[in-house]
């Protein structure tokens, strides 16, 4: 498990424009982070709630469908959420558009 997380972290960290990566366990506890601690906890609480809500909503819309990824584009940056079975991966990047 830990080696897998390290591989994920290294892979995503190499992309340009990535300013932060957080990996949560299924209980929304941060396992790994490249961001400041208070900001990590903030993101973890808010994004995990959003992820569970979105997953439930997708199931409501179509019972056989399943949430794979969420992208939130804001004025300042972009947040990409990748929920999977064992963790939730949050990547914060600054797209240069």
């Amino acid at each position: 498990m830990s080696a897998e997380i390290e591989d994920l972290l290294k892979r995503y960290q190499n992309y340009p424009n990535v300013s932060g990566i957080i990996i949560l366990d299924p209980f929304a506890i941060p396992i790994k982070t490249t961001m400041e601690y208070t900001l990590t906890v903030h993101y973890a609480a808010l994004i995990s709630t959003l992820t569970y809500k979105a997953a439930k909503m997708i199931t409501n819309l179509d019972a056989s469908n399943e949430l794979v990824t969420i992208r939130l584009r804001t004025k300042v940056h972009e947040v990409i959420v990748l929920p999977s079975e064992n963790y939730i991966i949050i990547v914060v990047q600054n797209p240069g558009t």
Partner: protein
Amino acid sequence: MNRILEKVIHQNGTIVDRILSEHTIGYVVSDNTANAVAETSFDNTSAQAILKHLHGLLVSTCQSVVRDIDPSNKLCFMRLGTRKFEYLVAPEEYFTITVVQ
């Protein structure tokens, strides 16, 4: 309000055509104030479902999340990838636009 929508669609005709010509299954445009479907290519049941779940619940949740993290920030665009299709949601001031592809 629908007059504004027709004007916007007319002004951006090429963009609308490009969006609809790609692998698009359909779209829903909803009025934010009335919480009603302004324009859609789906049947009414599907449009209402997307309106209630996506525009009503999820867009407001995402806007709250973004605002909580940074009060000066603002949600501009949202992509929901699922196994079957992808929902592209653009919350604007008067309308919320969803394209399913």
